[in-house]
Structure formats: C-alpha cells, structure tokens
C-alpha cells in the first residue's frame, strides 16, 4: 500500500523527531518506564502470592484414622485401595508411632513417659487431585471398611478455600486494575506530547499530507517510546526477581509452598511488558492524533 521509500522516510522521521523533541521524549520514556516497572513488580508479587495460596490449598489433606484392630500390613493394603479411588492424588501412611512422636513434638516430652500402650491410631494422609474434591474423597473413604474416623476439618477448610479464592480474585482484580492504569498513564503521557505538537500536525496537513502520512511517523515514534520505556523495567524486574528467587528459595524449600520458577515466568512477563509498551505507544499515538487530523 505504502511505498518502501515512504516507510523508510517515516522511520527516519520518527527517529529524527524523537531526537529533536528529546526533552519530551525523555519525559515520555520516563513515564512509560516507571509505569511498566510498577506493573512488572506488582504483577510478579501478586502472581507469587496467588501461587503460594494455591500451594497451601493443594496441601489440604484428609486424615484417615485406621481401626486400632487392623494390622499394619492390612493398613497398607487399605492405603492401596484408597489410592485407587477416583480423585485421589496421593496417599501417605503414618504409623501410630510416627503419630505419637508428633504429639510429643507438639506437647512436650512428658507424654512419651506414659508407660502404657500407644493409644493412637495408624493414619493415612490423603490428598485429592483437586483441593475442592477433598470433601468427596473423604466421604468415599469413610464408606470403606477399616476406617474408624475421617478428619478433614469440614467448615474450617471451606473457609480456607474461600480465603484462597478471595486472595486470588483480589490479585486478579489488582492486575487488571494495574494494567488499565498503565494503559491510561502511558497513553495520557503520549497524548500530552502529541498535544504539544498539534501545530505541526496542522501544518503538515495544510501542505498536502494525508492523514496516514502524518499519522505513521507519530505512531512509529509512539512505538519507540513504548519500546525504550519497556527495556529498563524488563531488566530491573528480571534481575530483581532472579536475585530474590535465589535468595528466598532455599529459605522456604521445606515449606509447602514455593515461588514461581523464574525462566518461564520472566519470559512471559517480559513479553507482556514489552507488548504493553509498544501497543499502548502505537495506539496511544494513533488515538491522540486523531482529533488534530480532522480537517476544518
């Protein structure tokens, strides 16, 4: 549609214009940088909080007390049986000796001094494939022979699920709000730089430039501003995240949760930040210029 030489001209003009308006360009790039940095940091934070919440959620398990009369070998067979139930992801066996040790750990040594037979049960810890199926799984296990009691904290767990869900929803709302704000702030800045050049746009039109001919260099300029503005945030967020990840991961490695693995996550986040800068840059320019293009 447009000749190659025209594209080359537009490209050249966009660079020249950025340079000749360097003061404004710098201000725009600065605004984009700060905004995307904000988005990058908070998105990383929020996604990790959501990840951690989900990890905790996944940690929910059903505790099955096995009849005291059942022998250990049979108990292990029961474990196999439970394992085969639908929606069961994981079964872990814990003997009554293990359980006693836990009680002692929590309540002081004196319990171990009790010189009688261990009164506790052998126990199965069962995880559902999806945390929300925990109640189902519990019911199924309860129906099996040889289980004396199935504990999974009914009401409490529902409340916990609800909390995790709320966290996740709030997180998503925050991300969406952040992105909208970024769109507004960046396109607003670009609007201001273009408004300052309204006079130029009018002149271009008066000497016979079509709307497209005027628009394209401005859009390219917007693209560069967005692109340049995305570089620093991407570097900062990537470097910051990797260093934090390396420092914090060892500390939490025995916990039930972990942080988002950097490689993949950062790649995606970078692409998103870059795309935001570039897309808002281009469309912000295109939108802002529209009202100055109207022929009188």
């Amino acid at each position, binding site marked *: 549609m447009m*000749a190659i*030489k*025209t594209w080359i*001209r537009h490209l050249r003009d966009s660079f020249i*214009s950025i340079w*000749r*308006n360097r003061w404004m360009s710098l201000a725009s790039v600065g605004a984009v940088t700060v905004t995307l940095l904000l988005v990058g940091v908070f998105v990383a934070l929020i996604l990790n909080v959501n990840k951690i919440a989900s990890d905790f959620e996944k940690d929910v398990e059903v505790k099955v007390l096995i009849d005291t009369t059942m022998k250990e070998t049979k108990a292990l067979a029961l474990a196999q049986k439970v394992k085969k139930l639908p929606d069961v992801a994981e079964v872990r066996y814990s003997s009554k000796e293990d359980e006693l040790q836990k009680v002692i750990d929590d309540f002081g040594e004196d319990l171990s001094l009790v010189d009688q037979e261990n009164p506790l049960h052998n126990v199965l810890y069962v995880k559902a494939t999806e945390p929300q199926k925990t109640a189902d799984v519990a019911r199924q296990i309860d129906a099996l022979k040889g289980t004396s009691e199935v504990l999974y904290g009914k009401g409490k767990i529902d409340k916990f699920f609800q909390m995790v869900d709320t966290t996740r929803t709030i997180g998503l709302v925050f991300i969406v709000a952040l992105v909208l704000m970024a769109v507004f702030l960046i396109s607003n800045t670009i609007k201001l730089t273009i408004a300052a050049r309204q*006079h*130029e746009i*009018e*002149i*271009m*039109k*008066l*000497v*016979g*430039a*079509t*709307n497209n*001919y005027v628009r394209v260099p401005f859009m390219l300029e917007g693209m560069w501003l967005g692109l340049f503005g995305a570089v620093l945030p991407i570097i900062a967020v990537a470097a910051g995240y990797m260093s934090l990840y390396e420092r914090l991961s060892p500390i939490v490695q025995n916990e039930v949760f972990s942080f988002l693995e950097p490689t993949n996550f950062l790649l995606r986040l970078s692409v998103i930040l870059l795309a935001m800068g570039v897309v808002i840059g281009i469309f912000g320019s295109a939108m802002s210029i529209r009202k100055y293009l*109207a*022929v*009188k």
Partner: protein
Amino acid sequence: MIEMKQVFKKYPGGSKALQGLNVSIAQGEFVYVVGPSGAGKSTFIKMLYAEERASAGKVLVNQVDVTKLSARKVPFLRRQLGVVFQDYKLLPKKSVYENVAYALEVIEKDQKFIKQRVTEVLKLVGLATKAKRFPHELSGGEQQRVAIARAIVNQPKIVIADEPTGNLDPTTTWEVMKVLEAINAQGTTVIMATHNREVVDGMRHRVVRIEKGRIVSDRAGGDYDGY
C-alpha cells in the same frame, strides 16, 4: 479554473468575513487581491485550499467544489496548490531544507529528485546557504522566503500567496516577484494578497479589491487604488 459563487463565511465567533463573494479566475492569470486589514483577503484564500469551509456558496477549484470535498480528498486538492501562508506556517522542528522537501515527500517523490529540486528552489529565493538552519534561526524575511520556496517547489498549477512580501525589503521583494512572474509566464495561475502598493503599481496585473467581505472593484492591469 477557479470560481466562487455567492460565497459567505461566518466564523464561529460571529464575524462575517465574506458576504457574497463572486469571482472567476482563469488558468494562467496573475491576480492581486488587495483591501484593508480585516477585509477578508485571507479568508478568501483559505476557501481555496479548504483551511476554512464556506458557510454558503460554491467554491470551484479545477472543476471540483471545495465546499463539498470530503476530508479524505482535501490533501489531494492541496497538492495541486502551492500556498504561502500569511504567518508562514513553517514546521519548527524541521530545517529549511526539510521544510521545503516535505511538500515533495508527501507526494512521494524520489529522494534524488527532491534533493535537486529543493536545492534549486532555495537558490532561487536566496537561501542556498541556510538550508540546514531551523526556522527560529532565521530572520523574518528569510522565514518568509522559505514559505515561498515551499509553495513553488512542487510546481503547482496554482500558487496562492498571502502577503508574501510583508517582511521583505524592496530589493528582495523585487526578486521574489520576478520568480512569481516567471512561473506565471510558464502558465501557472498566481493569486496574491498584498498591501504593497509599490508592487501592485509597478508590476501591472489584474487587481481584485475586497472590502468588508465583498469585491468592490476588479480590473485587469489596474493600480492599487483600483484605477
């Protein structure tokens, strides 16, 4: 070529700049437009390249009614005209060379041609040595000559100049007038709003006098005062 029929222009503020203007200009004519300050000369000129749209009436340029021209087509009208604006309207962030070249770039001329043609025109208006300057680094008269160079660079069929010598000394004025005469001799229509009695009386052409938005006299080879 150019024809206006009962053209009225009322600006949003309420001032009536044109009040039933009728005129017809043939291809190849040289027309002075004179009249007191605020008479409507610039408004008349702005009708031709659609900077302002008529409130009523017909404005024909090359058989096209400008008042009905869609926004998309306006740029193509403007490319057929070379306009010297009263306030120059130079692009502040482009050099002298770039300002003049821009009129050729929009019609997608080749780089080589542009370079040759712009250099030629800048020499013609005596600004060859100032090609790399920016508008704010020029004297008033130099800026005005850049505006003239831009108007004639794409060899338009019609040149419209609004007070193109207001900031020029008599010698430079004379040189610019010779340029306009020369392109007129090649068949270009020239329409020039001016207050310069010396020019109008010294280089005789058709004189159209506008007062209060109407043409009050129109005579070939007349002088500034309409005789």
